[in-house]
Protein backbone atom coordinates (compact mmCIF):
# COMPACT_ATOMS: atom_id res chain seq x y z
CA UNK A 1 0.00 0.00 0.00
CA UNK A 2 2.77 2.40 0.96
CA UNK A 3 4.59 1.60 -2.31
CA UNK A 4 1.47 2.43 -4.32
CA UNK A 5 1.11 5.73 -2.45
CA UNK A 6 4.79 6.47 -3.09
CA UNK A 7 4.42 5.81 -6.81
CA UNK A 8 1.30 7.97 -6.99
CA UNK A 9 3.21 10.77 -5.24
CA UNK A 10 6.04 10.42 -7.75
CA UNK A 11 3.54 10.58 -10.65
CA UNK A 12 1.93 13.67 -9.09
CA UNK A 13 5.25 15.49 -8.58
CA UNK A 14 6.48 14.53 -12.06
CA UNK A 15 3.24 15.87 -13.54
CA UNK A 16 3.66 19.18 -11.69
CA UNK A 17 7.23 19.48 -12.93
CA UNK A 18 6.17 18.79 -16.52
CA UNK A 19 3.39 21.36 -16.16
CA UNK A 20 5.87 23.94 -14.86
CA UNK A 21 8.28 23.13 -17.64
CA UNK A 22 5.63 23.83 -20.26
CA UNK A 23 4.62 27.04 -18.47
CA UNK A 24 8.13 28.41 -18.07
CA UNK A 25 9.52 30.89 -20.58
CA UNK A 26 13.15 30.40 -19.57
CA UNK A 27 15.16 27.74 -21.39
CA UNK A 28 17.50 27.25 -18.42
CA UNK A 29 14.58 26.51 -16.12
CA UNK A 30 13.16 24.02 -18.61
CA UNK A 31 16.45 22.13 -18.68
CA UNK A 32 16.60 22.02 -14.88
CA UNK A 33 13.03 20.66 -14.79
CA UNK A 34 14.11 17.93 -17.22
CA UNK A 35 16.87 16.78 -14.90
CA UNK A 36 14.44 16.75 -11.97
CA UNK A 37 11.98 14.49 -13.77
CA UNK A 38 14.44 11.65 -14.49
CA UNK A 39 14.76 10.15 -10.96
CA UNK A 40 11.01 10.48 -10.47
CA UNK A 41 10.28 8.62 -13.70
CA UNK A 42 12.76 5.88 -12.73
CA UNK A 43 10.77 5.43 -9.52
CA UNK A 44 7.40 5.55 -11.28
CA UNK A 45 8.53 2.72 -13.56
CA UNK A 46 9.95 0.81 -10.53
CA UNK A 47 13.40 0.74 -12.09
CA UNK A 48 15.21 2.38 -9.22
Amino acid at each position, binding site marked *: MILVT*YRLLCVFIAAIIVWNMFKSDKSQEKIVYCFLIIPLLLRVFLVK
Partner: protein
Amino acid sequence: MFPKLPLSLILLATTLLLTGVFGRDFQKLHEREPVVQGPGVTRVGKLSAYLPALKDTAGDTDVYYLEGREAGATVFVMGGVHANESAGMLSAVLLVENAIVKAGRLIVVPHANESSFTNTAPSEGVPTRFEIKTASGTRWFRYGDRLTNPIDQWPDPEVYVHYPSGQLLSDFEVRNLDRSFPGRADGNLTERVAFALTELVRKENADLSIDLHEARPMNPIVNCIITHERAKELAALASIDLDSKGVQMRLEPSPKKLRGMSHRELGDHTQTLSVLMETGNPIQDKLHARADDALILTGKDDFFTRAASNGLLYVPYLENGLSMEERVGRHVASIQELLNVFADLYPQKKIAVDHLPSYDQIRKQGVGQFLLSNGISSAPSKPAGPAGT
Protein backbone atom coordinates in the same frame (compact mmCIF):
# COMPACT_ATOMS: atom_id res chain seq x y z
CA MET B 1 -0.44 29.90 -22.92
CA PHE B 2 2.65 27.85 -23.82
CA PRO B 3 4.77 30.11 -26.04
CA LYS B 4 7.79 27.72 -26.02
CA LEU B 5 5.85 24.56 -26.70
CA PRO B 6 8.20 23.03 -29.32
CA LEU B 7 11.28 23.43 -27.07
CA SER B 8 9.37 21.91 -24.14
CA LEU B 9 8.35 18.95 -26.23
CA ILE B 10 11.90 18.42 -27.47
CA LEU B 11 13.22 18.57 -23.89
CA LEU B 12 10.51 16.21 -22.65
CA ALA B 13 11.34 13.73 -25.40
CA THR B 14 15.05 14.01 -24.50
CA THR B 15 14.19 13.42 -20.84
CA LEU B 16 12.23 10.29 -21.67
CA LEU B 17 15.09 9.05 -23.83
CA LEU B 18 17.62 9.67 -21.03
CA THR B 19 15.30 7.93 -18.55
CA GLY B 20 15.26 4.95 -20.87
CA VAL B 21 19.07 4.91 -21.13
CA PHE B 22 19.56 5.19 -17.34
CA GLY B 23 16.73 2.74 -16.73
CA ARG B 24 18.44 0.15 -18.91
CA ASP B 25 21.56 0.43 -16.73
CA PHE B 26 19.48 -0.21 -13.63
CA GLN B 27 17.66 -3.09 -15.33
CA LYS B 28 21.03 -4.69 -16.15
CA LEU B 29 21.60 -5.10 -12.40
CA HIS B 30 18.79 -7.68 -12.45
CA GLU B 31 20.54 -9.83 -15.05
CA ARG B 32 21.86 -12.95 -13.33
CA GLU B 33 25.39 -14.11 -14.04
CA PRO B 34 25.62 -17.65 -15.42
CA VAL B 35 26.72 -20.35 -12.99
CA VAL B 36 27.85 -23.47 -14.85
CA GLN B 37 26.77 -26.78 -13.39
CA GLY B 38 29.93 -28.73 -12.66
CA PRO B 39 30.31 -32.48 -13.06
CA GLY B 40 29.33 -33.02 -9.41
CA VAL B 41 25.94 -31.27 -9.61
CA THR B 42 23.12 -33.82 -9.52
CA ARG B 43 20.20 -31.39 -9.55
CA VAL B 44 19.34 -27.71 -9.29
CA GLY B 45 16.39 -26.45 -7.32
CA LYS B 46 14.98 -23.19 -6.08
CA LEU B 47 14.94 -21.73 -2.59
CA SER B 48 11.19 -21.23 -2.98
CA ALA B 49 10.82 -25.03 -2.67
CA TYR B 50 11.28 -24.41 1.07
CA LEU B 51 8.87 -21.46 1.17
CA PRO B 52 6.46 -21.31 -1.78
CA ALA B 53 5.65 -17.65 -0.98
CA LEU B 54 9.13 -16.80 -2.31
CA LYS B 55 8.36 -18.12 -5.80
CA ASP B 56 8.72 -15.48 -8.54
CA THR B 57 9.95 -12.88 -6.04
CA ALA B 58 13.30 -11.09 -5.93
CA GLY B 59 14.25 -13.36 -3.03
CA ASP B 60 14.15 -16.65 -4.92
CA THR B 61 17.52 -18.10 -5.86
CA ASP B 62 19.14 -21.28 -7.19
CA VAL B 63 20.06 -24.17 -4.91
CA TYR B 64 22.66 -26.65 -6.19
CA TYR B 65 22.69 -30.23 -4.93
CA LEU B 66 25.88 -32.27 -5.23
CA GLU B 67 25.04 -35.78 -4.07
CA GLY B 68 27.48 -38.64 -3.62
CA ARG B 69 26.72 -42.27 -4.46
CA GLU B 70 27.32 -43.22 -0.83
CA ALA B 71 24.92 -41.88 1.81
CA GLY B 72 26.38 -39.71 4.53
CA ALA B 73 26.37 -36.24 6.03
CA THR B 74 24.74 -33.19 4.49
CA VAL B 75 26.79 -30.01 4.35
CA PHE B 76 25.15 -26.71 3.46
CA VAL B 77 27.31 -23.89 2.06
CA MET B 78 26.00 -20.43 1.30
CA GLY B 79 27.67 -17.42 -0.28
CA GLY B 80 26.20 -14.07 -1.23
CA VAL B 81 24.41 -13.39 2.04
CA HIS B 82 26.10 -10.02 1.52
CA ALA B 83 26.50 -9.30 -2.20
CA ASN B 84 29.47 -6.97 -1.67
CA GLU B 85 31.53 -9.81 -0.18
CA SER B 86 32.49 -11.27 -3.54
CA ALA B 87 34.94 -13.96 -2.41
CA GLY B 88 32.13 -15.68 -0.48
CA MET B 89 29.88 -15.85 -3.55
CA LEU B 90 32.77 -16.82 -5.83
CA SER B 91 33.94 -19.62 -3.50
CA ALA B 92 30.41 -21.05 -3.54
CA VAL B 93 30.39 -20.88 -7.37
CA LEU B 94 33.78 -22.60 -7.41
CA LEU B 95 32.32 -25.40 -5.27
CA VAL B 96 29.38 -25.83 -7.66
CA GLU B 97 31.68 -25.98 -10.68
CA ASN B 98 34.44 -28.18 -9.23
CA ALA B 99 33.38 -30.35 -6.30
CA ILE B 100 32.67 -34.02 -6.83
CA VAL B 101 31.00 -35.62 -3.84
CA LYS B 102 31.89 -39.26 -3.23
CA ALA B 103 29.99 -39.70 0.02
CA GLY B 104 27.31 -37.54 1.65
CA ARG B 105 26.08 -34.44 -0.11
CA LEU B 106 26.74 -30.76 -0.53
CA ILE B 107 23.97 -28.20 -0.90
CA VAL B 108 25.25 -24.88 -2.21
CA VAL B 109 23.50 -21.51 -2.53
CA PRO B 110 25.91 -19.00 -4.14
CA HIS B 111 23.50 -16.00 -4.11
CA ALA B 112 21.71 -16.32 -0.77
CA ASN B 113 20.32 -12.78 -0.90
CA GLU B 114 19.56 -12.50 -4.62
CA SER B 115 17.93 -9.08 -4.17
CA SER B 116 21.09 -7.58 -2.67
CA PHE B 117 22.93 -8.33 -5.94
CA THR B 118 20.60 -5.92 -7.77
CA ASN B 119 21.75 -2.74 -6.03
CA THR B 120 24.90 -1.10 -4.73
CA ALA B 121 25.49 1.04 -1.64
CA PRO B 122 24.54 4.68 -2.27
CA SER B 123 27.44 7.19 -2.47
CA GLU B 124 30.14 4.50 -2.58
CA GLY B 125 30.80 4.72 -6.34
CA VAL B 126 31.45 0.99 -6.58
CA PRO B 127 31.22 -0.98 -9.83
CA THR B 128 28.19 -3.18 -10.44
CA ARG B 129 30.16 -6.00 -12.09
CA PHE B 130 33.62 -7.49 -12.25
CA GLU B 131 35.18 -9.88 -14.70
CA ILE B 132 37.47 -12.86 -14.25
CA LYS B 133 39.54 -14.22 -17.10
CA THR B 134 39.47 -17.95 -17.66
CA ALA B 135 41.57 -19.86 -20.18
CA SER B 136 38.59 -20.07 -22.51
CA GLY B 137 36.97 -16.68 -22.05
CA THR B 138 35.83 -14.11 -19.56
CA ARG B 139 33.23 -14.66 -16.87
CA TRP B 140 31.32 -11.77 -15.28
CA PHE B 141 29.91 -11.54 -11.78
CA ARG B 142 27.74 -8.98 -10.04
CA TYR B 143 29.02 -6.79 -7.22
CA GLY B 144 26.08 -5.78 -5.06
CA ASP B 145 25.28 -4.37 -1.66
CA ARG B 146 25.21 -5.70 1.87
CA LEU B 147 21.47 -5.06 2.02
CA THR B 148 18.33 -6.14 0.18
CA ASN B 149 17.42 -3.77 -2.66
CA PRO B 150 14.99 -1.15 -1.26
CA ILE B 151 12.94 -1.55 -4.43
CA ASP B 152 12.05 -5.01 -3.12
CA GLN B 153 11.61 -4.04 0.54
CA TRP B 154 10.70 -0.52 1.53
CA PRO B 155 10.49 1.58 3.66
CA ASP B 156 12.85 0.78 6.52
CA PRO B 157 11.30 1.16 9.99
CA GLU B 158 12.54 3.70 12.54
CA VAL B 159 14.00 0.81 14.52
CA TYR B 160 14.40 -2.77 13.34
CA VAL B 161 12.97 -5.27 15.82
CA HIS B 162 14.49 -8.71 15.22
CA TYR B 163 12.10 -11.66 15.20
CA PRO B 164 11.78 -13.64 17.44
CA SER B 165 14.27 -12.18 19.96
CA GLY B 166 12.89 -8.63 19.99
CA GLN B 167 16.43 -7.25 19.79
CA LEU B 168 16.54 -3.64 18.57
CA LEU B 169 18.83 -2.75 15.67
CA SER B 170 19.34 0.23 13.35
CA ASP B 171 16.68 0.85 10.73
CA PHE B 172 18.64 -0.36 7.67
CA GLU B 173 19.52 -3.67 9.32
CA VAL B 174 15.97 -4.75 8.50
CA ARG B 175 17.34 -5.42 4.99
CA ASN B 176 20.43 -7.30 6.24
CA LEU B 177 19.96 -11.03 5.71
CA ASP B 178 22.60 -11.80 8.31
CA ARG B 179 20.52 -9.99 10.93
CA SER B 180 17.28 -11.69 9.92
CA PHE B 181 17.80 -15.37 10.76
CA PRO B 182 15.87 -17.51 11.59
CA GLY B 183 13.34 -15.41 9.69
CA ARG B 184 9.59 -15.84 9.44
CA ALA B 185 7.30 -17.12 6.71
CA ASP B 186 5.00 -14.08 6.74
CA GLY B 187 7.68 -11.44 7.37
CA ASN B 188 9.32 -8.95 5.02
CA LEU B 189 11.29 -10.21 2.01
CA THR B 190 14.62 -10.52 3.90
CA GLU B 191 12.94 -12.40 6.75
CA ARG B 192 11.26 -14.73 4.24
CA VAL B 193 14.60 -15.49 2.57
CA ALA B 194 16.13 -16.16 6.01
CA PHE B 195 13.18 -18.41 6.87
CA ALA B 196 13.54 -20.38 3.60
CA LEU B 197 17.28 -20.88 4.22
CA THR B 198 16.56 -22.03 7.78
CA GLU B 199 13.88 -24.39 6.45
CA LEU B 200 16.41 -25.76 3.94
CA VAL B 201 18.83 -26.53 6.76
CA ARG B 202 16.05 -28.08 8.83
CA LYS B 203 14.31 -30.14 6.12
CA GLU B 204 17.52 -31.37 4.49
CA ASN B 205 18.92 -32.28 7.92
CA ALA B 206 22.12 -30.35 7.25
CA ASP B 207 24.78 -31.60 9.67
CA LEU B 208 27.09 -28.67 9.01
CA SER B 209 26.31 -25.17 7.69
CA ILE B 210 29.02 -22.87 6.38
CA ASP B 211 28.27 -19.22 5.63
CA LEU B 212 30.93 -17.47 3.49
CA HIS B 213 31.56 -13.78 4.17
CA GLU B 214 34.17 -11.05 3.91
CA ALA B 215 34.99 -8.20 6.25
CA ARG B 216 36.83 -4.89 6.31
CA PRO B 217 40.58 -5.27 6.92
CA MET B 218 40.27 -2.71 9.74
CA ASN B 219 37.62 -4.86 11.43
CA PRO B 220 39.08 -7.22 14.07
CA ILE B 221 36.60 -9.96 13.05
CA VAL B 222 38.46 -10.97 9.89
CA ASN B 223 40.37 -14.04 8.65
CA CYS B 224 38.43 -16.10 11.12
CA ILE B 225 35.88 -18.83 11.65
CA ILE B 226 32.98 -17.65 13.80
CA THR B 227 31.48 -20.66 15.45
CA HIS B 228 28.36 -21.61 17.34
CA GLU B 229 29.27 -23.35 20.61
CA ARG B 230 28.08 -26.75 19.33
CA ALA B 231 30.55 -26.46 16.40
CA LYS B 232 33.41 -25.21 18.60
CA GLU B 233 35.42 -28.42 18.57
CA LEU B 234 35.06 -28.83 14.81
CA ALA B 235 36.03 -25.23 14.07
CA ALA B 236 38.92 -25.24 16.56
CA LEU B 237 40.46 -28.37 15.04
CA ALA B 238 39.99 -26.98 11.52
CA SER B 239 41.62 -23.71 12.59
CA ILE B 240 44.64 -25.56 14.04
CA ASP B 241 44.99 -27.74 10.93
CA LEU B 242 44.74 -24.71 8.66
CA ASP B 243 47.37 -22.92 10.74
CA SER B 244 49.73 -25.86 10.32
CA LYS B 245 49.27 -25.50 6.56
CA GLY B 246 50.07 -21.79 6.60
CA VAL B 247 46.48 -20.54 6.37
CA GLN B 248 45.63 -18.56 9.49
CA MET B 249 41.92 -18.59 10.29
CA ARG B 250 41.37 -17.56 13.90
CA LEU B 251 38.52 -18.87 16.00
CA GLU B 252 35.80 -16.48 17.15
CA PRO B 253 32.87 -17.51 19.35
CA SER B 254 29.39 -16.64 18.12
CA PRO B 255 28.08 -14.02 20.57
CA LYS B 256 24.94 -15.27 22.29
CA LYS B 257 23.40 -11.82 22.71
CA LEU B 258 23.80 -10.56 19.15
CA ARG B 259 20.85 -12.06 17.33
CA GLY B 260 19.94 -12.60 13.71
CA MET B 261 23.24 -13.93 12.39
CA SER B 262 23.39 -17.29 10.65
CA HIS B 263 26.05 -18.79 12.96
CA ARG B 264 23.90 -18.01 16.01
CA GLU B 265 20.36 -18.64 14.77
CA LEU B 266 20.96 -21.71 12.57
CA GLY B 267 22.84 -23.24 15.49
CA ASP B 268 20.08 -22.37 17.97
CA HIS B 269 17.02 -23.12 15.84
CA THR B 270 18.14 -26.18 13.89
CA GLN B 271 20.18 -29.33 14.40
CA THR B 272 23.11 -28.08 12.28
CA LEU B 273 26.63 -27.26 13.38
CA SER B 274 26.91 -23.67 12.26
CA VAL B 275 29.99 -21.64 11.30
CA LEU B 276 30.62 -18.42 9.40
CA MET B 277 33.93 -17.50 7.76
CA GLU B 278 35.38 -14.06 7.07
CA THR B 279 38.21 -13.03 4.75
CA GLY B 280 39.57 -9.48 4.36
CA ASN B 281 38.16 -7.40 1.51
CA PRO B 282 39.64 -3.86 1.09
CA ILE B 283 36.79 -2.45 -1.06
CA GLN B 284 34.46 -2.83 1.92
CA ASP B 285 36.55 -0.50 4.03
CA LYS B 286 36.39 3.30 3.89
CA LEU B 287 40.12 3.76 3.50
CA HIS B 288 40.55 2.98 -0.18
CA ALA B 289 40.99 5.36 -3.10
CA ARG B 290 39.11 4.62 -6.32
CA ALA B 291 36.61 1.76 -5.96
CA ASP B 292 36.80 -0.10 -9.25
CA ASP B 293 36.74 -3.71 -10.40
CA ALA B 294 40.54 -3.88 -10.07
CA LEU B 295 40.19 -3.18 -6.34
CA ILE B 296 37.64 -6.02 -6.04
CA LEU B 297 40.05 -8.41 -7.76
CA THR B 298 43.44 -7.30 -6.42
CA GLY B 299 42.54 -5.60 -3.14
CA LYS B 300 45.55 -3.42 -3.90
CA ASP B 301 45.49 0.14 -2.65
CA ASP B 302 48.26 2.48 -1.48
CA PHE B 303 46.26 3.70 1.51
CA PHE B 304 46.03 0.14 2.79
CA THR B 305 49.77 -0.33 2.35
CA ARG B 306 50.30 2.73 4.56
CA ALA B 307 47.67 1.58 7.05
CA ALA B 308 49.34 -1.83 7.25
CA SER B 309 52.75 -0.26 7.87
CA ASN B 310 51.15 1.67 10.75
CA GLY B 311 49.66 -1.50 12.23
CA LEU B 312 46.06 -0.50 11.60
CA LEU B 313 44.92 -3.65 9.79
CA TYR B 314 43.85 -6.95 11.26
CA VAL B 315 45.00 -8.97 8.24
CA PRO B 316 48.47 -9.49 6.79
CA TYR B 317 48.62 -6.94 3.97
CA LEU B 318 51.49 -6.93 1.54
CA GLU B 319 52.17 -4.51 -1.29
CA ASN B 320 50.56 -7.10 -3.56
CA GLY B 321 47.22 -6.43 -1.92
CA LEU B 322 44.58 -8.92 -0.84
CA SER B 323 43.73 -10.60 -4.10
CA MET B 324 40.60 -12.54 -4.95
CA GLU B 325 42.87 -15.59 -5.30
CA GLU B 326 44.07 -15.22 -1.71
CA ARG B 327 40.53 -14.72 -0.39
CA VAL B 328 38.81 -17.46 -2.39
CA GLY B 329 41.74 -19.81 -1.72
CA ARG B 330 41.36 -19.15 1.99
CA HIS B 331 37.62 -19.88 1.91
CA VAL B 332 37.94 -23.06 -0.17
CA ALA B 333 40.84 -24.37 1.92
CA SER B 334 38.82 -23.71 5.09
CA ILE B 335 35.77 -25.52 3.68
CA GLN B 336 37.96 -28.50 2.76
CA GLU B 337 39.48 -28.51 6.24
CA LEU B 338 36.08 -28.32 7.95
CA LEU B 339 34.94 -31.29 5.85
CA ASN B 340 38.08 -33.26 6.74
CA VAL B 341 37.69 -32.58 10.46
CA PHE B 342 33.95 -33.33 10.31
CA ALA B 343 34.74 -36.70 8.69
CA ASP B 344 37.23 -37.45 11.50
CA LEU B 345 34.93 -36.34 14.32
CA TYR B 346 31.79 -38.03 13.02
CA PRO B 347 32.92 -41.17 11.15
CA GLN B 348 29.36 -42.52 11.16
CA LYS B 349 28.31 -39.57 8.96
CA LYS B 350 30.49 -39.85 5.91
CA ILE B 351 31.43 -36.84 3.86
CA ALA B 352 34.03 -37.03 1.09
CA VAL B 353 34.44 -34.28 -1.47
CA ASP B 354 37.06 -34.46 -4.22
CA HIS B 355 38.52 -32.09 -6.78
CA LEU B 356 38.47 -28.95 -4.69
CA PRO B 357 41.52 -26.89 -5.64
CA SER B 358 43.96 -26.19 -2.82
CA TYR B 359 44.88 -22.80 -1.36
CA ASP B 360 48.21 -22.83 -3.22
CA GLN B 361 46.63 -23.92 -6.50
CA ILE B 362 44.08 -21.10 -6.42
CA ARG B 363 46.70 -18.54 -5.42
CA LYS B 364 49.18 -19.60 -8.08
CA GLN B 365 46.87 -20.48 -10.97
CA GLY B 366 44.12 -17.93 -10.30
CA VAL B 367 40.40 -18.31 -9.66
CA GLY B 368 39.69 -18.24 -13.39
CA GLN B 369 41.54 -21.51 -13.86
CA PHE B 370 38.88 -23.25 -11.79
CA LEU B 371 35.81 -21.65 -13.34
CA LEU B 372 34.07 -23.55 -16.10
CA SER B 373 33.28 -22.09 -19.46
CA ASN B 374 30.56 -23.60 -21.65
CA GLY B 375 30.74 -26.74 -19.59
CA ILE B 376 34.45 -27.25 -20.20
CA SER B 377 36.90 -26.86 -17.35
CA SER B 378 39.93 -24.73 -17.96
CA ALA B 379 41.71 -26.32 -15.03
CA PRO B 380 44.39 -28.70 -16.25
CA SER B 381 44.15 -30.89 -13.15
CA LYS B 382 40.42 -31.41 -13.52
CA PRO B 383 39.16 -34.82 -14.53
CA ALA B 384 36.83 -35.27 -17.47
CA GLY B 385 33.22 -35.47 -16.35
CA PRO B 386 29.67 -35.14 -17.57
CA ALA B 387 29.70 -31.36 -17.29
CA GLY B 388 26.61 -29.56 -18.42
CA THR B 389 25.59 -25.98 -18.65
